């Protein structure tokens, strides 16, 4: 009984010991904050990777993909083998390529990875719609600057927003005016692109009947009359290459559409007036880019023009600076993996089901089944042609790196707490020396050595609990208010500590894992108890008479 009473009294009266456990408090708080932020980052990163990749990926070893007739066979086979565990799957074609565009007459070329996708099933496999810029609200300094241009819940498709369509029309008109001027005044045009002569009314009518106009674009456009009367049609352009048949009203988007990664077409710059970091666009949705890739078989270059339908920003810079999503059938057509049923109009009525694919992305009902699914698919699909992996296996090195980083950080921080343990040991030893006479008194009153030892062990335990408890509270509060704290520090230091344009986060993501918090607290308490063992043992082994004489 006296053990608890004395330990309690020591806890309340020995401020020096309370000071000594501040180190434990800080260590625990730091560990909780660091772990929460790191797991927040890693969760966010996993979400983002999953937003681009799928749970399980079946891909051909060859970049030429499956045989055309095997696409449906493969999908049926997968359905047959693991259909009960599959939530959704989507076919894709992945290939390296180059994206080129002009900005103010300067050509830009970007190496990219082209991914041909089927929007609705792709969005079911990995919810990428939310990564598209037109579906995101734009914040600056935590304030809403621009609400989403369209409802994020709308199904994913290749449509342009009315705003971007309008923009495209304006640009097309501007272009036309310039060309007219250059023709009229005979000056050389600096505007890149084929010089297109002004057509007559007959051509305009032909343009309105152009079967290649995208129906969706027609529906969403309001000024159909002005388009049909648009004289700027080049279906009869003699200077155009093989793509001439596809040339059409430039105010209408092309049939090939792409989502381009934000890293490919944007650049951050510091506004000289406000000093704030702004985002500049090299290419806006609604503008066209040139895509170059290779055909199947003999690696001949394949070129096509595509309209940027949207810009996506997943937050994984690796993806945002390399990926270009394209409509699957257009990519298949461009690479010679697919032709339309009508031989004279091979670009008509394309259906990806008749073409070749390189990858099948699968979303599972329960990710716990991933290993099972991979195992079954590996045994059922010919391993000479197909590789089956989970996204974690594909992203193994990255995830592993994050894990190692967090483990090392934990070890280092734990060493800090261990160092704090030595501080406690020292101060505890001091307390025991100071209490030598009291120990003698207790012994003369009949306290046993083990009783005296447990007084100091209990004292160490309660100090550890107070220190760790305060650390947990402090750490959790810090994590809870981390963004406010970041704002405060930023305003004191005058520049942003956590720049959302660098990290792609509006806020610092945190995930508090209760088990981690518990383990950190328990190990801190253990360290405090361990640090008090030696002083407590010394206290217990005091000779009562010598202790009583101690002044």
């Amino acid at each position, binding site marked *: 009984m006296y053990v608890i009473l004395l330990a309690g009294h020591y806890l309340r009266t020995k401020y020096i010991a309370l000071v000594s456990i501040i180190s434990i408090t800080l260590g625990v708080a730091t560990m909780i904050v660091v772990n929460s932020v790191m797991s927040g980052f890693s969760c966010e990163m996993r979400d983002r990777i999953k937003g681009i990749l799928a749970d399980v990926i079946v891909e051909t070893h060859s970049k030429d993909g499956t045989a055309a007739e095997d696409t449906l066979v493969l999908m049926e086979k997968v359905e047959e083998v693991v259909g009960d565990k599959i939530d959704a799957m989507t076919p894709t074609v992945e290939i390296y390529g180059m994206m080129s565009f002009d900005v103010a007459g300067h050509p830009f070329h970007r190496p990219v990875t082209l991914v041909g996708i089927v929007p609705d099933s792709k969005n079911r496999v990995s919810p990428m719609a939310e990564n598209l810029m037109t579906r995101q609200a734009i914040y600056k300094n935590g304030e809403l600057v621009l609400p989403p241009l369209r409802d994020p819940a709308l199904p994913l498709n290749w449509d342009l927003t009315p705003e971007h369509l309008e923009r495209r029309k304006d640009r097309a008109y501007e272009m036309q005016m310039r060309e007219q001027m250059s023709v009229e005044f005979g000056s050389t045009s600096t505007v890149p692109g084929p010089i297109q002569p002004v057509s007559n009314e007959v051509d305009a009518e032909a343009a309105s009947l152009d079967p290649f106009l995208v129906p969706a674009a027609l529906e969403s456009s309001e000024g159909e009359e002005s388009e049909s009367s648009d004289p700027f049609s080049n279906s009869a352009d003699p200077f155009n290459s093989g793509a001439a048949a596809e040339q059409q009203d430039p105010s209408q988007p092309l049939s090939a559409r792409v989502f381009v990664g934000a890293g490919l077409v944007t650049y951050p710059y510091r506004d000289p007036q406000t000093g704030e970091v702004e985002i500049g666009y090299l290419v806006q949705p609604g503008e066209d880019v040139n895509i170059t890739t290779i055909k199947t078989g003999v690696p001949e270059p394949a070129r096509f023009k595509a309209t940027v339908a949207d810009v996506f920003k997943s937050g994984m810079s690796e993806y945002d600076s390399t990926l270009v999503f394209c409509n699957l059938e257009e990519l298949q057509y461009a690479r010679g993996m697919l032709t339309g049923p009508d031989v004279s109009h091979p670009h008509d009525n394309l259906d990806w089901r008749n073409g070749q694919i390189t990858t099948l992305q699968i979303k599972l009902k329960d990710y716990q089944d991933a290993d099972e699914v991979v195992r079954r698919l590996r045994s059922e699909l010919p391993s000479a042609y197909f590789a089956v992996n989970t996204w974690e296996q594909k992203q193994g090195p990255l995830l592993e790196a994050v894990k190692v980083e967090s483990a090392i950080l934990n070890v280092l921080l734990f060493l800090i707490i261990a160092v704090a343990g030595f501080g406690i040991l020292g101060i505890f030893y001091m307390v025991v020396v100071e209490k030598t006479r009291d120990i003698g008194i207790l012994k*003369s009153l009949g306290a046993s050595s083990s009783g005296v030892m447990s007084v100091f062990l209990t004292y160490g335990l309660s100090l550890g609990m107070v220190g760790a408890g305060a650390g947990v509270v402090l750490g959790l509060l810090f994590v809870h208010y981390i963004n406010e704290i970041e704002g405060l520090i930023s305003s004191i230091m005058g520049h942003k500590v956590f720049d959302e344009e660098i990290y792609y986060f509006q806020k610092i993501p945190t995930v508090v894992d209760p088990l981690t918090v518990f383990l950190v607290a328990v190990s801190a308490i253990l360290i405090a108890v361990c640090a008090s063992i030696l002083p407590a043992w010394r206290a217990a082994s005091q000779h009562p008479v010598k202790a009583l004489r101690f002044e």
Partner: protein
Amino acid sequence: MRTLPMKPTVPHLCAVALDKAYRKGQHRIPVLRGVDISAQEGEFISIVGQSGSGKSTLLHLMGLLDGPDVGEVRLKGDRIDNLPSGGRDRIRNQVFGFVFQSYHLLPELSLVENVLTPLLIRHNLFSYWRHRAEFREQATEIIERVGLTHRLRHRPSELSGGELQRAAIARALVASPEVLLADEPTGNLDAHTGSEIMDLLCSLNEDEGLTIIMVTHDEKIANLSQRIVRLTEGRIQELEEAA
């Protein structure tokens, strides 16, 4: 209530041929050289001697705070100095009450908590919790007996020397000991306060028949006891009846 010893031949507490030496470096410094002393039940004995005569060491040996090199300590005829440490701890807690020259109260505890310490040590959490009201009452009664009722909640640092010694006596008495061992109880007090403390000890001896063994160097104080044992250089010099 004064009780006569049941068996006068068996002393309440006795020391037989105690030898004790301390080591200081290579030198062995003998403190006690074959000391025999015995106290009958209800006796009040003073051990008188100069500084360094070994009187405090003798008291510590008899109170089991230290072990003798040679010799025995007997409580009612049973040897107690060779008991295992657990048994010695229990005897210190239940049989002896200690009073020291410099009071030795625990500075963190209030007066009443200090007085309760022997009971806190004796009982574990649950049995203390069950009897806590009883123990409190016991403590307040004894504090009343030593006249400190108005100081119950005070810390030792807020008490005067006389009050501290009375608190120490209350603590020694709370566990109803059989023998009170007092080491210079008036050593740090002025003559007036010292005589108050001595009055208290004498009345305890007379009214309750408490066996008291007191160490002092003050002849006047020693004369208040029933018997005086003189100790010189570790040997009993003479036994005499106090005046």
